[in-house]
């Protein structure tokens, strides 16, 4: 983990209030693992106050760049959109734990929705790089929000999409589970997806992990501000999303609450 100043290579709108920013950050690109995140500060003065956390959407070791896919939701992300190529950005990265890719995995599912799926591109690319049969299931309210489809396909993943909000993206996965053995499923902090995977993992016997989000002050475990409740054998405890997470076994997230 390192605190440094990097510069913006490009910052392009994707669709409506979404954008993708590329940073010149070779050290981070070389060490960051899928699922890790970064904290950024890119404005003068004390308002807004906190640095802003973002997932690593992709890291290119050769080019020495990382990309962030973002949605404009408030003052901080609004300022992010305004950044121009060449601008300097303070970055604390890479942070948190990551999606562990275990030796024995043969087939993996990657499940996500909207911008919550931002860290999934890097994960899927890495899964494929390690020769794992990777199925990607993404839902969105309409097709233009399937941001990373091209990347998933280019990486050689089996890509399945859903833009019909009456159905659940996990139902696509459930369908495939009937005929395929999955070793692991990865998702991002949507409670609905987590609950669904929590149910399916018991039936179909696969490991399941989710990446979580909470408001953060420090991003490095110092402030104890970003806790969520997790469960271990009936007992609950607080864990820091930035330090013990952001990736947690879904078992610990759902406890007995599936």
């Amino acid at each position: 983990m390192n605190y440094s100043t990097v510069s913006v290579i490009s910052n392009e709108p994707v669709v409506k209030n979404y954008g993708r920013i590329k940073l010149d950050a070779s050290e981070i690109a070389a060490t960051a693992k899928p699922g890790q995140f970064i904290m950024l500060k890119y404005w003068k003065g004390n308002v807004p106050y906190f640095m802003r956390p973002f997932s690593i959407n992709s890291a290119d070791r050769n080019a020495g760049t990382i990309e962030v896919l973002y949605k404009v939701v408030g003052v901080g992300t609004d300022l992010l959109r305004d950044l121009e190529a060449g601008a300097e950005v303070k970055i604390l990265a890479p942070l948190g734990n990551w999606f562990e890719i275990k030796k024995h995995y043969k087939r993996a599912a990657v499940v996500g929705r909207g911008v919550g799926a931002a860290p999934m591109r890097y994960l899927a690319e890495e899964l494929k790089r390690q020769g794992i049969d990777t199925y990607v299931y993404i839902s969105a309210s309409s097709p233009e929000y399937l941001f990373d489809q091209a990347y998933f396909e280019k990486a050689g993943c089996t890509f399945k999409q859903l833009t019909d909000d009456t159905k659940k993206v996990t139902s696509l996965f459930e369908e495939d589970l009937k005929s395929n053995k999955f070793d692991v499923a990865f998702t991002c902090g949507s409670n609905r997806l987590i609950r669904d995977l929590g149910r399916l993992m018991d039936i179909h016997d696969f490991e399941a992990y989710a990446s979580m989000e909470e408001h953060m002050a420090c991003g490095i475990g110092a402030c104890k501000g970003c806790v969520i409740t997790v469960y271990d054998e009936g007992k609950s405890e607080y864990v820091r999303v930035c330090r013990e997470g952001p990736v947690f076994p879904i078992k610990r997230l759902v406890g007995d609450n599936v």
Partner: protein
Amino acid sequence: MYKTDISVKIKSLEMKNPVMPASGAYDYFEDNANVFPMNTLGAIMLKSIHRRERFGNPPPRIAEITAGMMNSVGIPSVGIDKFLAENQPEKYAVLDVPVIISISGNSPEDYVEICQMLEGNPYLAAIEMNLSCPNVGTGLQLSSDEVLLGRTVQACRYMSSFPLIVKLSPNVTHLKKMAQIAEECGADALTIANTYMGLKIDIKKRKPWLGNTTGGVSGPAIKPLTLYHVFQAYRAVTIPIIGCGGIMGWEDAIEYFMAGASAVQVGAGNFVNPMLMKEVIDGIDNYLDQNGFHSLKDIVGIANQKGSSAECGCNL
């Protein structure tokens, strides 16, 4: 090492420079060591260790406010027994920096017991008594009650041979008086101040934003308020004051020194700029050098001449 003398001495606690983290803001060695060069600090300040184990408050625990933050973390702590059993203080021995332990409890007795358990610990250099943040038991801030404050400090004084730093709450009518009581009862220094009670409401959810309803406000928003308290306390006590509140750069530290502080703590500012404490240390040294001062002591209280009329309550 430095161009000027920026060392600070509080009894046996000797610091090469006047900058340390505020308790709870940059504490656990293993978490932060690889970001910040901890050995550049004047002292290391641990997050408050409670008398007993505590899990802390329910989330959300932090909220952003205009030019600052609120927290209701609630001192999650393994408790002093486990803390010592795990030999936690020893872990800092690899750094050549004095370690100050911040202690917390629900009652005067809790503090005394902790002092007793710490007595003679070779890895610690001083004790900061966090009397400004109980949140449990009676729900009373020990430093906001004259009698309790005096009793707690005095009892710890008898028990402890460590330099005792008393951390006061700013949420009082007369902080000056509390400062005097702490000094009379044996404090070797004062930390002024802890966070301000605050509230943020989520108007979409129509309820308080924080899981614990209210929280403590810190950051640049409260700097003028805490600076005022330091200024007033400096006129009332002779022991050193450690200024703490809203420091975001070396200029803020200089303001605290000129108001009367001998050292400073950096809290929330660390979250916004992980290199802040280093910048503050270098900035202080440069400022003194460039302005012809040889020692930090030359500016302590320089803006606080007894002549100036700051005795009254309010000026509107």
